């Protein structure tokens, strides 16, 4: 039994199904991220865990105890669950000082005056706000408010801390800095965390495990490397990176490798390629080939020998700092290629692309 167990969670708002049957388990001390586009049901899932929403069906257990079980009519109110939550809008109370904000949960728990003072001060020092304890929350910057919210959520040592896009209201630089601090803090404190974000970078660098969601359904669960390198379907591949997705047909299996063909229309012959994945799929099945831009090689001349070679026409190039982002027209497809050495490329120029089979991943719908 995991520390947090979610089973068959469903929640609708009127006709709209926000969460459509989610199963998830989180181990003690783990940092799990729910990742998905806006409106996919991440916040709703988190609020169900917090007890801020009543799910339509499903169970949630924390430390083996049911906190929500629709079938058994169990529902603990948020204050009975002993969790911490950090909200997107910080939700720092403007009518209290920083100290009072953080001490709120301790006072409710009827800790002694001395304990409140000590724990609050510790928590504030942990987030680097010790010197601002007496300041009113209205006089804080966005980053400082977020730290107050964080200290407030962890100070009473909750079982789980829930984060709902805590960094999304910060500017890019501050977000980067807070992300590093948050990761460090989570490591130091070792608190079980469920983190919601729509930012794949955030999810990939911070988490022990990533849960990719779309339309209220989990698409894939795995550690960041797996999610990045081996997306199990087109949605994940597309959402996690700027992968090229080319539609095609499965021709056959050859050991580890898979033979496919990608039609490029206009009566031209289809491109035949070898890639990996789609092991179970039958011959003739529709597949989607996913290749990351940085895995494609670009050649100005036709190379003597190269696997998976096909040709295209440069339609656009953009310099992005230390690499070149190049769009190549291949039949009806636009294929993005990233090259880290500088090439003199002109629009309309004919180029050759190739990739090794282990970089091409076949996904079934």
């Amino acid at each position, binding site marked *: 039994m995991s520390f947090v167990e979610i089973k068959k969670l469903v929640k609708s708002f009127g006709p709209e199904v926000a969460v459509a049957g989610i199963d998830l388990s989180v181990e003690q001390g783990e940092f799990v991220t729910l990742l998905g586009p806006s409106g996919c049901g991440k916040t709703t899932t988190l609020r169900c865990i*917090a007890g801020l929403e009543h799910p339509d069906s499903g169970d949630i257990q924390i430390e083996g105890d049911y906190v929500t079980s629709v079938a058994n009519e169990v529902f603990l109110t948020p204050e009975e669950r002993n969790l*911490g939550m950090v909200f997107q*809008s910080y*939700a720092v109370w*403007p*009518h209290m000082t920083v100290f009072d904000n953080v001490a709120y949960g301790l006072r*409710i728990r009827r800790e002694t005056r001395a304990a409140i003072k000590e724990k609050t001060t510790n928590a504030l020092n942990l987030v680097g706000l010790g010197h601002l304890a007496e300041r009113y929350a*209205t006089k804080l910057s966005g980053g400082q408010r977020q730290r107050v919210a964080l200290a407030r959520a962890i100070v*009473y040592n909750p079982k789980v801390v829930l984060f709902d896009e805590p960094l999304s209201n910060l500017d890019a630089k501050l977000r980067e800095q807070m992300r590093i601090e948050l990761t460090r803090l989570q490591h130091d404190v070792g608190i079980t965390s469920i983190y919601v974000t729509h930012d794949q970078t955030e999810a990939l660098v911070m988490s022990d495990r990533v849960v990719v969601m779309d339309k209220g359904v989990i698409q894939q669960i795995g550690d960041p490397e797996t999610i990045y390198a081996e997306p199990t379907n087109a949605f994940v591949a597309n959402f996690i990176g700027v992968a090229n997705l080319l539609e095609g047909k499965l021709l056959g299996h050859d050991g580890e490798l898979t033979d496919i063909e990608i039609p490029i229309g206009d009566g031209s012959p289809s491109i035949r390629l070898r890639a990996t994945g789609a092991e179970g799929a039958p011959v003739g099945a529709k597949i989607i080939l996913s290749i990351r831009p940085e895995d494609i090689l670009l050649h100005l001349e036709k190379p003597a020998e190269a696997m998976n070679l096909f040709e295209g026409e440069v339609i656009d190039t953009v310099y992005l700092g230390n690499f070149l982002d190049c769009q190549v027209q291949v039949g009806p497809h636009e294929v993005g290629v990233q090259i880290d050495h500088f090439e003199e490329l002109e629009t309309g120029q004919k180029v050759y692309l190739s990739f090794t089979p282990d970089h091409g991943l076949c996904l079934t719908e």
Partner: protein
Amino acid sequence: MATDTAAPQIDVAPPRGWRTWFTQENIITTIVGLIVAVAVIVPLVALVINSFLVLDDLGFDTEWGLQNYRDIFQGRVIKKALINTAIISTGCTILATLLGVSLAWINARTNCPFREQLEPFNLIPFFLSPFVGAIAWHNLASPKVGLLNNMAKSAFGIDFPLFNVNNLWGVIWVTGIFFAPLVYLFVVGSLRRMDPSLEDSARTTGAGLLRTTFTITLPLVTPAILSGAIIVFVTTAGEFGVPFKLSAPFGWETLTTQIFTKAVGDDANHYLGAAMSMVVGVVTAFFIWIQHRIIAPRSYTTVTGKGFRPNLIDLGGWKWLAFAYNVFYVCVAVVLPIICLFFVSLHKIWSGRIIWSELTFWNYQKVLFFWWPESIDAATNGIINSFILAFGGASIAMVVAIIVSYMIHRTKGYGARVLDFLSVIPIGFPGIVLAMGVLVTYIKTPIYATLWILLLGYITRFFPYGQRNISSIMMAVSEELDQSSRMAGATWLTTLRRITIPLLKPGIFAGWILLFVIFLRELSISIILYSAGTETLSVGVYYLSNFENEPMTSALSIAQTVALLICVVIFRKVAGKEALTA
């Protein structure tokens, strides 16, 4: 810029001089600004001056002195009136705040049944006349002719009066229920727009529902509550009609009823009246200053960006109690008074009981049929005059409001700040105080005893209400829309007519109707400034109440109430639901 003068440059700058100042914009705004300044400042200055003039015993000559103020604080009658005013204002503020906050909370934040249908009814008293409310409650709950008392007597055999509103409690009750919507309007917006995660985070931190409500929700709306409470306090201190009807005839005078006796009648002493007005005005202006300078800037910005409604609290079985409470309020503030007035108005003589066999519309003929020789002039004049004043006053006040708002928000500098200040001042002074100032200023001029002096009093006192309506929109509409019209070659007036005003149209309509309503029921300015022939609707009601009888009074009250209710419906259509909330 120093290099400009040092460099041997030749006239590249446009010619500067007094001629260039005379633009449409500068001329019109300056004229309006000066008119506003004169209209607002002169009566107040006159009030101050007159308050230090002491009338001699014969009542002919005056000399400078502080005797008026001594009379107020030492004379028995006036001192008692001062104390009564303080008691009423405090009591009403407490009652209206409790009612307003609880109703706002129920409607905005709980699952009380039918709360959306009840809300417009909760706001109706805001549009009606408290004076008429007092008349209604007099007929409902005065010891002798009170309908409720008599019903209790015949139903349960209670032979002592169950209720008695002819005292300070009655005044507190009626003003409290009528001014509750003021607090409501201040609070409900903050409650509705509050970021729900402020409360959610208290819940996840471990606070229960009640604790969250009392440590997070209410403290966050406290500035709004205080603002509403102060407005109620000030409004009550200046309220004339309710104490005049309910308590003054029974020995409970207030400062306003005393000011009234000093303004008109045999006992008139404008100088003493001016001094009493000064006392009221200084207190109310001080409170409004506190509200503007100290409380309003402290309100918390808790507005959420997300469109989702804030958490509704599930009251469980208690929701029916909340519903009953809400319905009770609507009954005592709207339904009962109107029904009672209606029945009273159908009798020739009111004895505290409905006599079904003798119902008649005769009173309505007496007070409404202005073409009928036997109709009562004070009533019929009042109807015609009030519609003229309301229509003309609202129109002129809105024009002033637009130009003043334009000056405040679209021209920078000293003039804008002075005008901003000038348009707060009238809010700080109750109608009766300002009217006293207008009276002593213009009593010796030809506009005295005409409708013009009433119009002047109305506009001076109430144009800030329209101005606030316009200003809030003008702040939201980009200045660049005006400027691009000017760039395209339009004159200032054309821009105002073709761009600015069309953009402000909804606000202008809403403000106009609001002022129309205020003017249609206005009593405390009118009662000081009217004379025979220039009665207004409320003065007509006053006249009937004083010199005729309750049924006739009720008939005119019902007529006024119906007109006001029609305005409410139109207002809601034009301005939408959120229009009044702070």
